[in-house]
């Protein structure tokens, strides 16, 4: 036996192999492209996932669920990041919101539904009741194309900010009320009017039923409360006239101590047990009683009540208390004024107890008679003098002097009513200013009337003025922040947000430059994308090395805010920087560092070209603006990233050379990329009306359906070569890789097909098969003559014994038969891949057929013992020639791969399901990883051990096709070095 046989390569065969190589390369290339597409998809996804996870804002992707009328009814969380869990406190992934928060606000549902339907991104601030009344600020943007129902939501919990705002608002309302109350009471000149106005105003503000002021008076030596008037919105009466203080029982002690009595429900309070019936008879169910303590004595009370139980809030109680104080002050002021009109003596008396400054002034001599308190108000010693001249030249704050002088002249006009009322600022010895309100009356005498004297009083209103000012500042600040939010909210580009915020801040503070810079510490850069400047100050937009800020960093670490009043004198600024700062016109600045997660990420600068002493509220405003700008910029970055990721994804999908199709689990096409639409000639819209089955060639639908069902149920992906039907009805060969897409709980929810047009490969394959067919057919004709002559020669020489010629002819004939076999196999193969292999079944005794084939084989391989173990078999309908061919192939292989010439055992068996034929050898064996490959066309075992054998690797390929055509199975059991068992099993009935 020849150790190594080299196949003679004809010209035609070399050409054939070249074509095969080209074909293989083309196939490899397309596979590589598929891998690249997949890899770049997953890289992009990983990048954005990292980004989302590192975000401080919560991020989620939800899939909206609509009812049949397209009303949003629910949504499911498809993705959430870590921050999401922190903000909501509940893991929601894979759940629907209705499961987790059954009373979820329809407000959000409608908002997200609208985003999903229209693709319009939104930004919202709203409350979520289901999560313990938390406030959320939210941005929502649709992910995917027009029919995507997925919405990406970025949100942060702003509950704390909202509460602060509410508190601020409540404080503001209270201050507002008090200012109005002051304005209301000031012009009133009798105590009853004051009480009435104060009571009414407070009652309206609090929606209280009754409000009144009661003064403590002494009647026959017994303390009584005197109620003169009040506000009453109830159908029960208001207590009127004096009533004994004793009626308040043990509450009196509390009041005397200055403690406020707050009763939310009289039924539940023991303190008023005896009075309960009486209180209820006048429908007092809840009340607040505020003591007014003057000079350590209870001077009166202020009362507010409700005809129903009511939970009084602390700020309401505070307001009642402040109203009480102001009412008392106003009453006493009016009494003082009245007293002024009555008599100087009583005035003096009353005013001394009231703590106001009073004065008498004689205009003709400009002589003033101020009391001690009046002198004190003007910062003068007890024995000082006060004249109009002095007041106007040095005591009154310069800007107020003209107004004061004018008011005095008007009051002294004999045609007028002689009244003077003005607020002025008085300079104190320490240089500070004190607000004083002056009320005075000019008395006229003589004929013609002439101003004789002016009697007046002055009250220190500095405190009130300060409150008014701070309120004003608070309001300005609030307006500014609202404006800032309004400006930034609609912006989606970080640089725009930075610019708008800088501009608003700069204009608000009347500075000449503001800019926001981003620190990129990986590149050691400071980036100023934009800046706002005015008054000809140069722009600082651009990129700078991080060292430029290095000198500020220690200061930032300490305070986060750096304030420089004058760069030339500031100890913070190194001398070396003076010239540079001057060059860009910076003399004073505030810088706010934004340090997030311990990283210096950005800073906001406000600069001005002249020295400036920064007020605390300016610094606070810059700080607040910096924080808000940062938050808005981060949000915009996230949104941009989302959009970019979406665009990337879209580009990858649409520019892919492969067709990409998304299917639901019923096989309906829900998405197709441009390439796939081109491949099949359908528009993308048309494709969405198709199913996988409807575009698949009829003959492949059943197999397709089985594989797709396995994918839908078990998530099993598969690859297959398929014929798709194009719009024009023609056939397109494709290679499909079909993979499931899993939902958040790991169940398949849809599928993706990457489909590559392989029609060119198929055409090449077809040409190749045609070529093989023609070539082998043509080879057969000369071979027929050669074979016949060879056999004739053999017969003729058989008679002559012991001549080498006889042996030569025998060898010649063996090789001619081998060649005939090869040509036969080639032709078979090309016919099989063309689908032309036909089975012609006849009734067959398999044992007889096999015995024949064993006999033939034994002639060629005399070295091996061929042992036949025949089982009892029924007659079966098979293609005799073809099944014989498989048996011969198995035996020939067994002999070929056991070169040591051992036994080959052929067994037949009725398994109950069909007939099984096995051929066992004890040769070199086949390693497990080769088991699949050996049945492939043109596959030959390579490596050292295969050096023994020849062949073109078609035998097993043909065998598998023949057995498949019979509806049977074929296989191998083997291990390297342990021989092999090849078997096939045929069903009783061939389909």
């Amino acid at each position: 036996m020849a150790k190594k046989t080299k196949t003679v390569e004809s010209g035609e065969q070399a050409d054939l192999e070249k074509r095969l190589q080209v074909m293989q390369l083309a196939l490899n290339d397309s596979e590589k492209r598929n891998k690249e597409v997949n890899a770049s998809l997953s890289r992009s996804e990983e990048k954005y996932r990292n980004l989302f996870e590192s975000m401080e804002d919560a991020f989620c992707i939800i899939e909206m669920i609509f009812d049949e009328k397209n009303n949003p009814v629910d949504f499911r969380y498809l993705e959430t990041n870590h921050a999401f869990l922190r903000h909501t406190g509940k893991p929601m992934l894979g759940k629907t919101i209705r499961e987790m928060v059954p009373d979820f606000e329809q407000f959000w549902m409608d908002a997200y539904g609208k985003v999903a339907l229209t693709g319009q991104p939104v930004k919202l601030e709203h409350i979520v009741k289901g999560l313990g009344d938390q406030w959320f600020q939210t941005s929502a943007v649709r992910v995917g194309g027009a029919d995507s129902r997925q919405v990406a939501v970025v949100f942060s919990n702003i509950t704390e900010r909202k509460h602060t705002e509410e508190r601020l608002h409540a404080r503001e309302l209270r201050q507002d009320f008090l200012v109005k109350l002051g304005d209301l009471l000031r012009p009133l000149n009798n105590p009853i009017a004051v009480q009435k106005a104060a009571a009414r105003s407070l009652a309206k503000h609090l929606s209280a039923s009754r409000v009144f002021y009661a003064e403590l008076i002494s009647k026959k030596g017994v303390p009584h409360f005197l109620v003169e008037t009040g506000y009453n919105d109830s159908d029960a009466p208001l207590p009127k006239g004096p009533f004994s203080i004793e009626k308040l029982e043990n509450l009196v002690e509390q009041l005397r101590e200055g403690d406020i009595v707050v009763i939310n429900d009289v039924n539940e309070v023991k303190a008023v047990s005896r009075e309960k019936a009486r209180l209820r008879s006048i429908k007092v169910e809840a009340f607040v009683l505020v003591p007014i303590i003057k000079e350590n004595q209870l001077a009166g009370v202020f009362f507010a009540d409700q005809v129903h139980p009511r939970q009084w809030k602390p700020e309401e109680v505070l307001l009642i208390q402040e109203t009480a104080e102001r009412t008392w002050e106003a009453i006493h002021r009016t009494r003082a004024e009245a007293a002024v009109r009555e008599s100087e003596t009583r005035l003096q008396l009353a005013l001394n107890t009231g703590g106001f400054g009073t004065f008498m002034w004689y205009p003709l001599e400009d002589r003033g008679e101020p009391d001690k308190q009046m002198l004190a108000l003007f910062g003068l010693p007890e024995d000082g003098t006060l004249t109009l001249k002095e007041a106007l030249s040095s005591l009154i704050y310069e800007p107020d002097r003209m107004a004061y002088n004018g008011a005095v002249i008007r009051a002294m006009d004999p045609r007028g009513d002689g009244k003077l009322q003005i607020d002025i600022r008085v300079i104190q010895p320490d240089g500070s200013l004190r607000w004083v309100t002056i009320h005075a009356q000019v008395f006229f005498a003589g004929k013609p009337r002439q101003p004789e004297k002016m009697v007046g009083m002055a009250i220190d209103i500095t405190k009130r003025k300060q409150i008014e000012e701070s309120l004003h500042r608070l309001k300005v600040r609030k307006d500014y922040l609202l404006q800032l939010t309004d400006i930034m909210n609609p912006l989606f580009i970080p640089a725009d947000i930075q610019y708008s915020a800088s501009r608003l801040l700069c204009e608000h503070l009347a500075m000449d430059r503001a800019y926001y810079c981003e620190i990129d510490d990986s590149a050691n850069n400071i980036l100023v994308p934009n800046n706002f400047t005015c008054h000809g100050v140069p722009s600082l937009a651009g990129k700078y090395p991080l060292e430029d800020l290095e000198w500020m960093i220690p200061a930032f670490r300490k305070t986060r805010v750096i304030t420089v009043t004058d760069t030339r004198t500031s100890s913070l600024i190194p001398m070396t920087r003076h010239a540079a700062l001057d060059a860009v016109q910076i003399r004073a600045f505030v810088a706010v560092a934004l340090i997030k997660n311990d990283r210096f990420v950005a800073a906001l600068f406000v600069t001005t070209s002249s020295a400036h002493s920064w007020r605390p509220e300016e610094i606070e405003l810059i700080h607040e603006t910096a924080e808000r700008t940062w938050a808005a910029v981060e949000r915009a970055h996230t949104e941009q990233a989302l959009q970019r990721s979406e665009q990337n994804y879209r580009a990858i999908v649409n520019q892919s050379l492969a067709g990409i199709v998304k299917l639901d689990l019923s096989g309906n096409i829900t998405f197709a990329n441009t390439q796939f639409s081109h491949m099949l000639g359908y528009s993308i819209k048309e494709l969405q009306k198709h199913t996988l089955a409807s575009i698949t060639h009829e003959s492949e639908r059943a197999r397709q359906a089985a594989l797709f069902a396995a994918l839908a149920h078990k998530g099993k992906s598969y690859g297959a070569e398929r014929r798709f039907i194009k719009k024009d009805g023609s056939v397109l060969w494709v290679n499909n890789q079909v993979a499931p897409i899993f939902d958040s709980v790991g169940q398949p929810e849809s599928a993706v097909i990457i489909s590559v047009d392989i029609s060119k490969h198929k055409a090449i394959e077809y040409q190749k098969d045609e070529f093989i067919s023609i070539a082998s057919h043509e080879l057969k004709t000369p071979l027929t003559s050669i074979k016949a002559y060879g056999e004739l020669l053999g017969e003729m020489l058989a008679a002559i014994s012991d001549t080498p010629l006889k042996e030569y002819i025998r060898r010649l004939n063996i090789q001619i038969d081998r060649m005939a076999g090869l040509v036969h196999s080639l032709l078979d193969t090309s016919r099989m891949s063309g689908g032309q292999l036909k089975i012609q079944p006849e009734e067959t005794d398999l044992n007889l057929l096999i015995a024949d084939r064993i006999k033939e084989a034994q002639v060629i391989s005399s070295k091996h013992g061929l042992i036949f173990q025949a089982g009892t078999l029924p007659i079966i309908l098979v293609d005799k020639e073809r099944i014989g061919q498989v048996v011969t192939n198995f035996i020939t292989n067994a002999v070929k791969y056991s070169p040591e010439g051992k036994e080959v055992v052929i067994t037949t068996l009725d398994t109950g399901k069909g007939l099984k034929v096995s051929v066992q050898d004890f040769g070199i064996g086949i390693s497990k990883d080769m088991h699949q490959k050996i049945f492939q066309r043109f596959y030959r075992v390579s490596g050292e051990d295969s050096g023994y054998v020849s062949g073109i690797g078609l035998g097993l390929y043909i065998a598998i096709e023949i057995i498949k055509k019979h509806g049977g199975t074929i296989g191998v059991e083997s291990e390297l070095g342990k021989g092999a068992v090849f078997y096939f099993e045929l069903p009783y009935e061939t389909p």
Partner: protein
Amino acid sequence: MKKIIFVDDDEFIQQIVTVIFENLGFQVIVLTEGTSLLDDGYDLPDIFILDKQLPSMDGLTLCRRLKGQDRTKDIPVIMISATPGILKDAKAAGADDVLEKPFSVMKIREMVANLLDGKGDS
């Protein structure tokens, strides 16, 4: 002497078939194409051997025509072909047996002998 008419367009196959059967004492008449066999003006053989692929009229049609006319319907026909799997078509056309190229000398001798014997028996 038994007479064989062999139709094949390949000169060398004509030669070898002639050699095989003349050695056995047959009279072998070779033709390159077979339409003339449907005429009346020739002496009938004991057996026809036809290649499937022939110029002008292919072997299967020729076989069907021969089997379709009284004069030749009882004469056995062997169809030979380089294309495998024509058994069904050949039988449908009335061929008595089918032989695939390249055939062995033994096989064609056997086939002819069987058909002539069978005819002798009937």
